[in-house]
């Protein structure tokens, strides 16, 4: 049997391409300085160090160590935009990338609203998102965390027949943006997580459930919680059957409501509104949801996993109220969409990495929570379906038409109590209707990995399709 204790040497620096955040910023600054007359140039430079460990059956299945780095360069000249990227900070590669971006700009069409973000004077908040301890945390310890979560998952319940995968992952990332308009900002962050996917079987068939814990440093990871959630989710679905088709009220578990908010935020994209791809495009100032629905995006909140000092164009992050007491107050804007709408950027430029130009999106969404925890909320409403997991979000939800149809697993709720488990069914409605059929907002708010906080959310008049 292979040993399970493994030590890992980080890939040591091997050239001139090592830098701390200030060096990344200097590099970005240098690229921005290449702007010619009549040209705007922006460089986004990023670097990350990542570890991932996967264990199976008490052994390490794989252990990866990686460094990634790259630059994305945007050139706007004569209101035409071009972009190029390279997964390398090698000086000659960066120069080639600059030339490519410049050449690409010749082929974009003139769009009077195109242009980089001018500094807007908003001071970025200081956010404490980096823990130097992560860099010093021994690899053995990371492996142990993955092994522990697998072991804990198996030990919690005799009906757990296996753990499909147990993982540890972490990353330390740094990013810097500089532009010829005077943007100059950098930040860094650490995150680490453990995951467990449990397989439960009591003779009635296999059910799955996953649990996780996320933190900024491994010392703060909660192995017990990850294991307990995975086991509870898998075991409580044992014996699940296809429910009869009906109309009912659904209760979205916090992780599902967080995804739901993410969907709503794409409808609130200023870009989607401008291009006629949002069903809310013409509804500014109108009631679009129930009066107790207040949706805020606030990446300055340090508890949000999507918190960040600045957005994808280097403007300071800020708190934006999107829907207030059910009334649509504003769309999310980046510099382009803001300018074209006659508004300023709301600091909501987002980019997926150095390989793309900034789009528009939310990073830290939350609803104003209600008063009741989940059991009290279920009790106050009585009957319905508690949705534990969904599938087909990408194939069954359309933010342009508002159609909503997803596969679900969950538990029926009767007389306020959790009853039998169900599977192989779908729930459907439309997004505008769902926003107006919200029955209750739970008080059990928690920040989840990704761009939103979750809480139990009850939505009425949903079609459950089963047998």
């Amino acid at each position, binding site marked *: 049997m292979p040993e399970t204790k493994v030590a890992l040497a980080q890939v040591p620096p*091997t050239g001139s391409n090592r830098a701390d955040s200030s060096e990344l910023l200097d590099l970005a600054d240098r690229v921005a300085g290449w702007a010619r007359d009549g040209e705007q140039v922006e460089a986004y430079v990023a670097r990350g160090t990542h570890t991932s460990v996967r264990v199976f059956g008490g052994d390490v299945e794989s252990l990866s*160590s*990686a460094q990634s780095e790259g630059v994305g360069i945007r050139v706007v000249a004569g209101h035409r935009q071009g972009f*190029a990227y390279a997964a390398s900070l090698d000086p000659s590669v960066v120069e080639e990338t600059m030339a490519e971006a410049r050449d*690409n700009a010749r082929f974009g069409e003139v769009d009077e609203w195109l242009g980089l973000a001018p500094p807007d004077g908003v001071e970025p908040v200081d956010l404490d998102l980096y823990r130097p301890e992560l860099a010093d945390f021994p690899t053995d310890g990371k492996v142990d965390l993955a092994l522990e979560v697998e072991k804990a998952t198996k030990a919690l319940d005799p009906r757990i027949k296996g753990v499909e995968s147990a993982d540890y992952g972490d990353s330390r990332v740094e990013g810097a943006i500089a532009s010829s308009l005077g943007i100059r900002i950098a930040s860094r962050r650490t995150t680490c997580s453990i995951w467990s996917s449990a397989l439960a079987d009591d003779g009635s068939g296999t059910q799955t459930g996953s649990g996780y814990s996320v933190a900024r440093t491994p010392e703060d990871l909660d192995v017990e919680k990850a294991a307990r959630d995975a086991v509870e989710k898998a075991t409580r679905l044992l014996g699940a059957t296809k429910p009869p088709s009906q109309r009912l009220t659904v209760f979205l578990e916090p992780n599902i409501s967080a995804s739901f908010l993410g969907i709503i935020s794409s409808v609130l994209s200023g870009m989607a509104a401008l291009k006629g791809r949002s069903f809310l495009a013409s509804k500014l100032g109108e009631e679009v949801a129930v009066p107790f629905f207040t949706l805020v995006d606030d990446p300055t909140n340090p508890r949000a996993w999507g918190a960040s000092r600045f957005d994808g164009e280097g403007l300071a992050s800020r708190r934006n109220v999107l829907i207030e007491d059910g009334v649509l107050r504003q769309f999310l804007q980046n510099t382009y969409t803001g300018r074209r709408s006659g508004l300023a950027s709301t600091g909501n430029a987002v980019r997926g990495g150095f390989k793309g130009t900034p789009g528009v999106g939310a990073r830290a969404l939350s609803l104003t929570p209600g008063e009741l925890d989940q059991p009290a909320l279920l009790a106050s409403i009585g009957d319905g379906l508690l949705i534990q997991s969904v*599938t087909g979000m990408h194939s*069954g939800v359309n933010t342009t038409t508002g159609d909503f149809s997803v*596969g679900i697993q969950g538990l029926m709720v009767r007389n306020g109590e959790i009853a039998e488990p169900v599977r192989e069914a779908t729930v459907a409605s439309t997004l505008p209707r769902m926003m107006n059929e919200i029955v209750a907002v739970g008080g059990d708010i928690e920040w989840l990995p990704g761009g939103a906080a979750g809480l139990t959310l009850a939505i009425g008049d949903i079609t459950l399709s089963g047998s």
Partner: protein
Amino acid sequence: MAPVIEDSVVSRVLTAALRTGGDFAELFVEDRRASSARLDDGKVEELTSGRDRGAGIRVVRGETTGFAHTSDLTDAGLNAAAEAAAAAARGGGEGVREVALTSRRPERPSRAEVLPEDIPKSVKVELLKRAEDAARSEDGHIRQVAVTYGDGRRRFLVANSDGLVASEDQVRTRTSVSVVARNSDGVMQTGYETAGGTVGFEIYDKVQIEDVARMAARRAADLLKARPAPSGQVPVVLKRGGGGILFHEACGHGLESDLVGRDASVFKDKVGSQVASPLVTLVDDGSYVDEWGSYGIDDEGHAAQRNTLIEGGELTDYMWDFLRARKEGRESSGNGRRQSYQHLPMVRMTNTYVLAGDDDPEEIIRQTPYGIYCVQLGGGQVNTATGDFVFGMTEAYLIEDGVVTAPLRAANLIGNGPEVLRSIDAMGNDFETWAGTCGKDGQGVPVSSGQPTLRVASMTVGGTGVA
């Protein structure tokens, strides 16, 4: 030319990787260039160029894999990555095992006739405009058109401690059109169509981009009259090509030997058993000429091949990568793929399709008194451990008294893989394929699926209407 690394360097790196007692070491060097162009909202928004180059090194010792990757292709960079991978897979012993490169295969050239990199950017821009014009003139209700062109050239070299050295040049080209239609009542609908292959720019001699665009526009415009899809269990006829994703989700993932090995597949221990209707013969074929999911060698250096997975309803084999095959003492089936040098290879599908049967497609519809005729699917998701899967219908119609009638709004279909496979009761004599991206464990790879027109006796439709 594949990335050039001297043989002596390759041997030295592999020898270093085995220094801590590994059984197997592999060096994967990749050089990828990508270009894309996007037209939206009536304008060519931007052109993007990208370059990604680096090496991944894995060391296998017993059940444990150590992996490291680097973008530094100097001798020092490769050695550092080899050291890191070796440390990650470290065992008790130290050893010196010289690696000799004894099994050299000539580079597999791309079959592309016209390299996209030789096409002027202005020609790519022209393609976008032709597509837009065609879409907009198809129907008066078209409000928005987005056209995305992308090409990629991926050259890699893979060498391992068994002495193998192999390399390949892959070229892929693809264009997608997505359209929004709106009527005077403010109802919006979307339509999408794509055409791509493991081919060069010559694809546009065979595929008229205008046809692709018109198809997307037609779809959106026709859906303006759509009614909500029914809710509940109904027979589903899948048009040729449009329903291949059913097999990708219903059983394709469950036949990946890594998931089988984790007890995470309902198809475990089912080889030799009848798992589908006798009408079903399912093949995964990476050697399918010019298809979107094709290649000459997989990312572990094994030749792509045609693998029969289900024959006449009987499960004949799973798909295999190097690691899983080695564990079972058999040959890889050429299904070891990775998104890039930054990822570990795993078992992946290529072009997965069902062979044509004997039925007349029109007769299948005529003999369906009531049901759904599904022309295009938008994507899907499966839980391989339970077999439950969903996929979204993006173009579907009602069948009433054997005639295709009203268009239906988008909805997900849900089913259980083994049950759905068994309930296929008609198989057409036509055939078509469909190109997409398959995501697994965070890695996306190009795949295609295909099938003749066929009927599933019963599936659950997740609409809001009355069945």
